[in-house]
């Protein structure tokens, strides 16, 4: 066989189910207290710093990290359960999600010890928010075209240039960004980029909000003008960021957030059709549930591989490709079926409001965090086609 793609039927261990109950109980309390409305999916506008701290106090942030950095040394599968329950409940995770999933693991691997001791416990306590500085006005999927410069100066670097489409930069305390420290070489165009830890809300950084087609302002333009970064904020090898970028992708691409972004419209549709659906509604719902179940089983399987210390980059890319295409189409399929919902359905307005938002959200899902085209390129490489 050319392609030994495996998706073994991993089951979540018993301890995960206990944890799931705890997370559900916690979220139910938060909903009852009015922290957020599970029927309001446009949570991305919501910054919920107090909620973030309470999640941290539960020990659910950085939960796989070493205890000396504030972590719980729990399994990747347990983190999976917390993530999926938060997503399905439409909890306001924006403040901590990036730090917990992505930035923390990068710091764990590449930051100097004193930085880890300073920052990681604060992520675990839900105190700080991270952004990721990758894209630039002329560098999106083509990461290695980045031009924002980091120029050597006494004790560190001076940053000049612009990052763009940076989610949460307006509320972030830190950003992990790549900047150009050297020009690319003839042999290796990926050479010359370095990963940095950037402290936001400092001189030389200006954050300009950008309006999105959903009506939200969750991403930004970030302009750097002679912004100083000290030497100990370099993450990993100078000029060698390209070696560091790929291994984290499996974590970033295979999680439940890659197919649950618009899930709420399916729940609401089931509510609207009631206990005795007509054949058309039943068939539509049945197919969507079968597809959802399959993706979740694939995603859990990848989580199991990660837990076992593997680097399933191709499998993770497949999950994100199929998952994001599905969550993008979901609002449209639900809309098809909603056309036949009785006028008397009590949640009709909620469903319509949710569809309105989900349909506007849909286009970004196959772009953010690695476009469909990039993912298919990675899969094709895994198949031995390039």
């Amino acid at each position, binding site marked *: *066989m050319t*392609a*030994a793609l495996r998706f073994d039927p991993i089951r979540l261990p018993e301890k995960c189910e206990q944890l799931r109950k705890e997370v559900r109980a916690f979220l139910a309390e938060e909903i009852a207290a009015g922290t957020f409305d599970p029927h309001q999916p446009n949570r991305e506008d919501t910054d919920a710093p107090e909620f973030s701290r309470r999640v941290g106090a539960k020990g659910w942030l950085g939960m796989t990290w070493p205890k000396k950095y504030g972590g719980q040394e729990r399994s990747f599968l347990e983190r999976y359960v917390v993530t999926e329950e938060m997503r399905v409940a439409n909890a306001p995770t924006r403040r901590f999600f990036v730090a917990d999933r992505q930035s923390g693991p990068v710091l764990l691997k590449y930051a100097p010890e004193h930085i880890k001791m300073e920052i990681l416990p604060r992520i675990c306590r839900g105190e700080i928010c991270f952004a990721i500085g990758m894209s630039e006005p002329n560098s999106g999927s083509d990461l290695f075209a980045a031009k924002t410069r980091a120029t050597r100066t006494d004790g560190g670097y001076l940053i000049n240039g612009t990052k763009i489409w940076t989610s949460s930069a307006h509320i972030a305390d830190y950003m992990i960004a790549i900047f150009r420290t050297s020009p690319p070489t003839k042999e290796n165009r990926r050479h010359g980029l370095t990963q940095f830890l950037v402290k936001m809300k400092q001189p030389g950084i200006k954050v300009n909000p950008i309006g999105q087609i959903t009506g939200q302002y969750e991403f930004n333009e970030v302009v750097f003008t002679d912004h100083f970064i000290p030497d100990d904020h370099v993450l990993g090898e100078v000029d060698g960021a390209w070696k560091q970028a790929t291994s984290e992708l499996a974590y970033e691409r295979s999680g439940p957030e890659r197919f649950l972004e618009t899930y709420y419209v399916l729940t609401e549709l089931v509510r609207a059709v009631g206990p005795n659906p007509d054949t058309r509604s*039943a068939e539509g719902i049945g197919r969507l549930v*079968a597809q959802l179940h399959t993706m979740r089983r694939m995603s859990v399987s990848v989580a199991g591989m990660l837990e076992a210390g593997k680097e399933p980059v191709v499998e993770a890319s497949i999950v994100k490709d199929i998952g994001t295409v599905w969550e993008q189409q979901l609002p449209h399929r639900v809309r098809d079926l909603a056309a036949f919902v009785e006028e008397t359905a009590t949640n009709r307005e909620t469903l319509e409001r949710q569809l309105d938002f989900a349909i506007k959200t849909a286009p970004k899902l196959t772009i953010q965090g690695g476009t469909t085209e990039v993912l298919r390129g990675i899969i094709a490489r895994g198949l031995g*086609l390039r």
Partner: protein
Amino acid sequence: MAESDNIVVETAEKIFADLADPQTINNDKTNAWQAPLWQALSEAGLPLSWVADDLGGSGASLADGFALLNAAGRFAVAVPLAETMLAGWLLAQAKIASPEGEMTMLPATPKDRIGLDADGALSGRARGVPFAKMAKHFAVLAHGKDGISIALIDTGKARVEAGLNVGYDHSDTVTLDKVQPIAIKPAPKGFEQTHLMLMGGVARSLQIAGALESMLDISVRYSNERVAFEKKIAKFQAVQHNLARLAGESAAALAAATSAADAIANAKSFNDEIYLEAASAKIRCAEAAEKGGGIAHQVHGAIGFTMEHILHRYSLRALAWRDDFGSESYWAVELGKLVANRGADELWPLVASR
């Protein structure tokens, strides 16, 4: 299950490689390959994998049997291996011993019914029965006034009208008119026709997943050989992205099918969770057969549309298997009803329970 990881699968793969090579079979217009293949499978005890020793079988686990079916799909095996396994499994539910030779089971679709009358005779019609024409015995699930019974009958007692599915395999109509069975016993308490359909559906899902694995394999290989516009077609981005999608469909089918097989192998009863797993596998694998098979053909161009080429052995069979034991649209309606009946707030707990 890309490589064999147990002795049952290893044995089967060796037999398939020796006696069921798709290219050899495709070149053979006489069906001379069938008898030696069946004999080798029988000697290895594979058709009665799911039948305990004391009932005449080889007593393999459900898990091993499922892995065997996935391997059979990778070779697009066209003898009644899956059918005999399922028939033996059905008979074993009622502790009826399995005879030697090819078997299949009735009914093979959710809506057909075989009746059992007060005299103990079986009547009714079953459509789309796979390999009925090649079988020596039928395992029958029958509805009587005291509930469900399981019976073994001689195929000579039934009327079999031959038909072919889109994969050119036997898919026949079987009519029983007051047939006296060789053996008949009540089904275990709680056993329903739906369970046979879900079990058959998972078997077909694993076969489809296996066929897709092979379609991906031969499509990738072909794209690395075929030259057009002065380069291998594998180097064209449009072809690469199509093959990436085929890999996705193959992976989804494999994940859904192996998950359902694992669920049934470890289940104590057929509850909502097992229903979700098994119905989803059939729905998703059928969708993958259409999308994935379509891409495999697109990559191959005209050569894949010829009888000479082996692609159709996989692509058409995968499409045909969609129809057995309830189509994807049938299961989608049933699963949709189950989900609606449980209510909106019980959907996520059901999905998350797996």
